[in-house]
């Protein structure tokens, strides 16, 4: 996995492909649809990573693959660039929260910062009440 300092918004998709090489075929297929104009990171995280991740979370015995994905997401969640954090929060965590069963299973693999983002997203959309004890998760 790339070091945090080597990841920037304009290469975060390539970092994703290195961390989760299983996504490359889907990524290249998406890029072909776009021609010369590359899709933005939110599109790749949403349209390529999210379906893969939801599929893993719907399957049994995918621990290694899930740990691989959530480790990378935690890496990004701790990045200093707020736009990179937004990929985790408003594209990935939001989608996981659409299905309470999926979200519950995802909690097992989320790092602390990713879990914090997930909790914030659920409050924002009104899918859960804000916690009043100052903690998240």
């Amino acid at each position: 996995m790339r070091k945090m300092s080597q990841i920037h918004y304009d290469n975060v998709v390539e970092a994703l492909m290195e961390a989760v090489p299983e996504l490359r075929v889907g990524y290249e297929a998406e890029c072909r649809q776009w021609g010369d104009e590359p899709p933005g990171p939110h599109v790749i995280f949403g349209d390529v990573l999210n379906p893969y991740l939801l599929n893993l979370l719907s399957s049994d015995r995918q621990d290694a693959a899930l740990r691989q994905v959530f480790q990378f997401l935690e890496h990004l969640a701790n990045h200093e660039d707020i736009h990179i954090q937004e990929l985790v929060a408003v594209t990935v965590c939001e989608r996981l929260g659409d299905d309470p069963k999926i979200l519950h299973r995802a909690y097992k693999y989320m790092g602390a910062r990713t879990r914090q983002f997930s909790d914030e997203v659920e409050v924002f959309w009104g899918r859960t009440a804000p916690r009043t004890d100052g903690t998240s998760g």
Partner: protein
Amino acid sequence: MDENASTTEGQDRDRHEPPTAEDPRLQRVIQELFRANARLPGGTAGAVRHEVRTGELVGGKSHIRKAIERRRQLQQLLRRVDLSDQDRTTAQRLLDDLHAALREAGVD
């Protein structure tokens, strides 16, 4: 509660009910834009409006960049994909909604 405000919220909610599409790429965009079981209506465009009107973000994080990138994807879909008339109308409505929300956020 202010009756007019309630009516406006109801209209907003009706206007922002998630559409559906025949085209799988457009349907995937819709699934990414709209949140299931959410009290806040309007999907990503609604989130941008909410952020602008209330100042409330997602733990300091915004939906604006996501909206910009999805707007570009819808423009690309409308240019490149042979959509049915109904899907084209749906994509154009989603695009117009994101445009309007981003304009409200001061983004052209």
